[in-house]
């Protein structure tokens, strides 16, 4: 999201402001981000949320040193939170004490204090955990036999092979696989399982 914001702004460097705007855009609906006590209108923050950046004309953007520092801080926060991945709430907490840039501006305009900001991020994490639990419940309620998309373990089971063999098929391109958006988990379309099966043709001497 931050990279897309940088593209929208025609920037070649992604800084902390773009990361913060990217977080707010990820939380937004119809250009409005509700976060804790605050309502942010992306229009007033200079984000043309209706228009996707033009991939061919916009510049290629790299992270700045300041952006790297924000990610490093978010990594420390994620570790303290017992997570092995950096989530949006960790990035938002990384901004909690920022006095400069967009965060400094928002802090003054919306009378944001660090504790309330961190509290809002903590509540956001709670919502994510509830959503994860609900998706797990939904997944459990549909048996693999009736699902169109299978986990690597389920697909390996269906083919009667070890899951590592199945992963090798995916890596080599023999078996198409999809990645859940923003996650590492793979899914295999049931209809694609036939692609690793070849008819046995007897040798003609």
């Amino acid at each position, binding site marked *: 999201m931050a990279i897309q914001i940088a593209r929208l702004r025609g920037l070649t460097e992604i800084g902390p402001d773009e990361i913060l705007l990217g977080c707010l855009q990820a939380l937004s609906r119809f250009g409005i981000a509700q976060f804790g006590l605050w309502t942010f209108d992306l229009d007033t923050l200079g984000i043309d949320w209706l228009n996707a950046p033009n*991939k061919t004309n916009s510049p*290629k953007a790299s992270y700045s040193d300041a952006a*790297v520092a924000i990610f490093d801080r978010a*990594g420390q926060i994620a570790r303290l939170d017992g997570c092995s991945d*950096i989530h949006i709430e960790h990035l938002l907490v990384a901004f909690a004490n920022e006095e400069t840039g967009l965060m400094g501006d928002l802090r003054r305009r919306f009378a944001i204090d660090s504790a309330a900001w961190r509290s809002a991020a903590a509540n956001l994490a709670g919502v994510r955990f509830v959503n994860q639990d609900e998706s797990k419940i939904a997944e459990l309620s549909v048996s693999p036999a009736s699902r169109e998309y299978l986990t690597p373990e389920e697909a390996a089971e269906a083919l009667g092979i070890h899951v590592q063999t199945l992963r090798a098929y995916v*890596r080599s391109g023999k078996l198409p696989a999809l990645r859940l958006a923003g996650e590492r988990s793979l899914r295999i379309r049931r209809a694609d399982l036939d692609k690793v099966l070849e008819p046995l043709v007897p040798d003609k001497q």
Partner: protein
Amino acid sequence: MPLFVAKRTLPGITPAALMSAGVRAKTCCAEMTQEGESVRWVRSFFLPSTEQTHCYFDAASKLLVEEANQRARVPFDEVIEVIEMTPDMV
């Protein structure tokens, strides 16, 4: 798809900084994929005794791996093509 390894020497790197670098590499690869380039971070191995990290990428070319790492601001010593072998393949 060719496989490449980006070899890095990262003295004193912390687990949090490794996580940060991972997110940056992942997002830059995702962005380049949307741009129509073929580059994907597959996995990394950290070698604590040498403070080296080996990061593996599926990519159409070495240049794409270098570009993804430069855009992600993750330093590397060199990028070289590798050939994968697993017990399943022999």
